[in-house]
């Protein structure tokens, strides 16, 4: 089993990218992720679900925060703080990396 990836510092210009070792599926409200290498699985909902899909290896963190703020009508500072927390957790689990 691979060790979890150490957390990284995310910046405005970072480009989060979903790992190809992750398979995903939706039942209803939750998106379930399974990491093929570690066997761990996760459920994302709401903004977490949206942010996950924006981790496309092309959008910067700045773009992601702007898109989520617009979609949910939320304060960008709050969205940024939430996104940073989520991205840190996702990278710690080896679910994303930085393509920038």
């Amino acid at each position: 089993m691979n060790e979890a990836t150490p957390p990284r510092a995310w910046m405005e210009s970072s480009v989060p990218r979903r790992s190809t070792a992750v398979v995903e599926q939706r039942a209803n409200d939750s998106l379930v992720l399974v990491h093929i290498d570690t066997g761990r699985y996760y459920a994302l909902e709401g903004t977490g679900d949206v942010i996950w899909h924006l981790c496309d290896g092309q959008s910067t963190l700045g773009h992601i925060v702007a898109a989520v703020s617009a979609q949910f009508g939320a304060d960008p500072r709050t969205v940024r703080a939430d996104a940073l927390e989520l991205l840190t957790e996702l990278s710690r689990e080896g679910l994303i990396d930085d393509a920038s």
Partner: protein
Amino acid sequence: MEGVASRFSAFETAEGTPDAIVEILADSEPAASLARPAGRSRRLFEEEHELDYYPDSGTLRLVDIGIAALCDTPSASVRILVKDDDARAVHLASHLFFSLCLAELLRSRGRYPVHAACVSLDGRAVLFAGPSGAGKSTLSLACARSGWSFLGDDVVLVIADEPREPIVRAFPDEIDLTQESLRFFPDLGSLSLAGPAWEKRHVPPNHIAWLRLASEARPAALVFPERGPVARLSPLSSDAALIELVPNVVRTDTRVAQRHLDTLGALARAVPAFRLEIDDPFAAPGLLAPLLEGRAGAR
């Protein structure tokens, strides 16, 4: 091979070219004789048996004391080497190791194993999903005893090509009998075969006169049983049902794992799920029959 033949005596046989070849051969040093495939590997399981997947060749390698197996998925060929004087290893060859290789071959062909017992009424199926010890076998036998058809007590195969409704295919392997199962079904004691000391007693389903086998059904309810002081059925969200089903995904080929997860998602979306607390398994048929009313798909 006698162990394999006994396990699968309730399966339908088919003529023609086989879909897969399984060799079980005697060998004095199984692990040394079955070389590791080339390339990187992923450890899937190591607590009791070593189970590694080699993605470059699509090969599964299994090792335990006195036994080793290679499952080459692209060529659908399995080779199991076993020390023939080691009773535990010989039992693993016809049971767990055979099962793990067979499941991998089935997954690669779009038949996705789900750890669940399954019974049906007029072609509409209830799946009892959950870990070992949850009471799946006993509940499925209780329903079968009251006239329901039986598709399997531990594993069934699910096929879900959306937008078509999912289908459950039977996997009528030997029924494992716990002491509790035998308490509820004492007549099975005389039919069952005592396995090695570390295994449960088991009986091929076609040896039970009152058990009616079905080969296929439409899933109509997904039930997660647990022991409880009273019989109670509570709805479960499709999200929660999918989370419960995720451990069925085996982390071999990424595309196959995605399709397996897709199938579980389709099942969770299409079929209402419930948590079943139950103490008396014979209460299950009456409690579950209303779940099957009004759902199409009799086959």
